């Protein structure tokens, strides 16, 4: 008994720096956010009588729901693109690179050593009206006028997000692919599975945890992304993060901003739960 108690105590004391930071950095602001979402902005100050008026407004006015849907869709597209593009890369390094693996991993994360903002700006240069892609296409005579849809569009935001978050997809997928016991693959071959069946029955199911964590790692932060749509989205590429920022900035309605942030969080949490249940179900079915 005594020993057990001191074990728990030790665990908690080891955890305590993290717990304190969690409490100060996450729980307290989250509490403020929840409380504030029930207030009303009056001029420069707040009316602190609790009311659900903000939530009512968020459901009544079409802009909020539409931007939320658009954000989830754009971030979903970016997530799918990233995972599909990064899986082969992670697969290659895990199975076909035998020397200097660490170097490969470092090289793949190299672009992420520059600031996020700089990478977004770089995409603006690449996609711009007189940017790299348009100049190249015009030089080889494929187009006569620059393609305008490249920049200031939802596509521009999705492309940029997919590139900016690639490292977060490669690393977890690499780890789960690397862990796969090679003798299972040999066994499958011995029992007559071709390369495709072997991949579908062994590699893919066993690497699913990596794919899942990659999906969540990208989907959750990109849904609320602010800077990419602000710089590359144009009028049609605005996301919910931009609207939330405006509430705390020019619009000056902090309680509404808090409400929108909470609604965004709840939506992401719901989608994540559905996703987790669905993948668990699929995993059970195929294994």
């Amino acid at each position, binding site marked *: 008994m005594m020993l057990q108690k001191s074990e728990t105590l030790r665990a908690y004391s080891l955890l305590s720096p993290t717990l304190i930071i969690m409490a100060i950095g996450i729980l307290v602001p989250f509490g403020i956010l929840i409380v504030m979402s029930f207030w009303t902005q009056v001029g*420069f100050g707040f009316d602190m009588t609790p009311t659900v008026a903000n939530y009512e407004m968020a459901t009544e006015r079409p802009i909020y729901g539409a931007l939320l849907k658009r954000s989830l869709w754009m971030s979903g597209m970016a997530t799918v693109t990233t995972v599909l593009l990064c899986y082969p890369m992670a697969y290659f390094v895990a199975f076909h690179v035998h020397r200097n693996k660490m*170097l490969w*991993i*470092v090289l793949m994360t190299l672009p992420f050593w520059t600031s996020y903002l700089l990478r977004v700006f770089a995409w603006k240069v690449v996609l711009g009206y007189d940017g790299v892609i348009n100049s190249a296409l015009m030089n080889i005579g494929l187009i006569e006028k620059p393609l305008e849809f490249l920049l200031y569009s939802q596509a521009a935001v999705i492309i940029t997000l997919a590139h900016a978050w690639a490292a977060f997809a490669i690393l977890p997928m690499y780890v789960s692919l690397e862990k796969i016991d090679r003798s299972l693959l040999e066994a499958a071959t011995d029992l007559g599975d071709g390369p495709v069946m072997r991949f579908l029955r062994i590699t893919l199911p066993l690497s699913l945890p990596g794919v899942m964590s990659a999906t969540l790692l990208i989907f959750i932060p990109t849904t609320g992304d602010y800077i990419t749509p602000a710089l590359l989205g144009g*009028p049609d590429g605005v996301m919910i993060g931009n609207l939330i920022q*405006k509430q705390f*900035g*020019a619009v*000056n*309605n902090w309680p509404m901003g808090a409400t929108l942030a909470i609604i965004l969080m709840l939506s992401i949490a719901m989608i994540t739960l559905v996703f987790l249940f669905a993948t668990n179900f699929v995993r059970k079915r195929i294994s």
Partner: protein
Amino acid sequence: MDVIDQLGELGEGKLSRRKFTKSLMAAGIGIATTPLASSLAQAAADDQGTFFTWGGYDIPELFGAYKEKHGELPSFATFGGSEEALTKMRGGYVVDVSHPCNAGIPRWIASGLFQPIDTSRLSNWSDVIPELYNLQGNFVDGKPYLAPFDWGQTSITYRTDLFELEGEESWDMLWDERYKGRLGSLASGGDAWWCGAIKAGVAMSDIDTPEAFEKIAAAMRAQRPLIRVYTDDTTTLEQALASGEMVAAMTWNSSASLLKADGVPVRFATPKEGALTWVCGLMIHKDAPNLDSAYDIIDSLLSVESGKYMINDYGYGHANSKAFDAFDEETLVGLGLSKTPTDILAAGHFQIPQSQEWETKMNALFEEIKAGF
């Protein structure tokens, strides 16, 4: 200790725990001491006043006198719109000097975040054009809160070679269906909404009425599909105009001046309905940590040298009457300026200060319109 070696060992799983801990410790000490070293080096810069301003005013050319006295430039923080700046300061951000415009003066003073200016501490105050500080709401108990610095117009900069003008210059240019997707606008409601009022024929004095909201919103909704991008970043608009991505955009004087200086064929329009005119200036934060530097920042901005730069390179009017002496009447007319600012300001539409409720309502509505609702 070779980093590459260690990474190699880590990859092969050969790195011993002791070695790994050692390098972690080295990295930890390194990280922990880096901010110490840099904060010692930055101590000198912390003594400088902070100027919280629009992008474009954070340049050495405007702080000659300040630099002579302090040896370096003030610290800068920039914003895209003055509403955003006020919200940041209300959230607790403390600076020495900030840069609001006439429409915001009463609300900025009402926020209680600013202190009146002791004009006896400004050597250039006697040369400041009085019409520019005798603005609505600027004096409380006989003391001014805003020291005027720059004045100018919000109008249309257009490519004379790409935009085919039909008749006179007019706000209709930014509503021209022929140039759908090749028009640009400032994103801040502080400019765009008021220009929408001019286009919709709403008098500045009627802007706080339900009919005005309806009319202006209708105009902005009609314009929205034509706009390539709304931005507070003037460089984005200037580059788009220079490359031909846009043929016309809502800008301030400086964009046209900068593009002309680069040899781009542009004109800063004098719309027949009148441009939007404004006066901006400087306010001192009530808790300004470097009050002496704050006064030096203001004095430097009000100096004749800064004024010449503002007029010549940015095409803005300046508050110091002596700054205009270096220019002949013809040059000033060419820039859309005059030694008597009241003529210019009265010829356009001068913004009238509004309540905080109006600002919130207008900005919320304008954000919806920009997002397509």
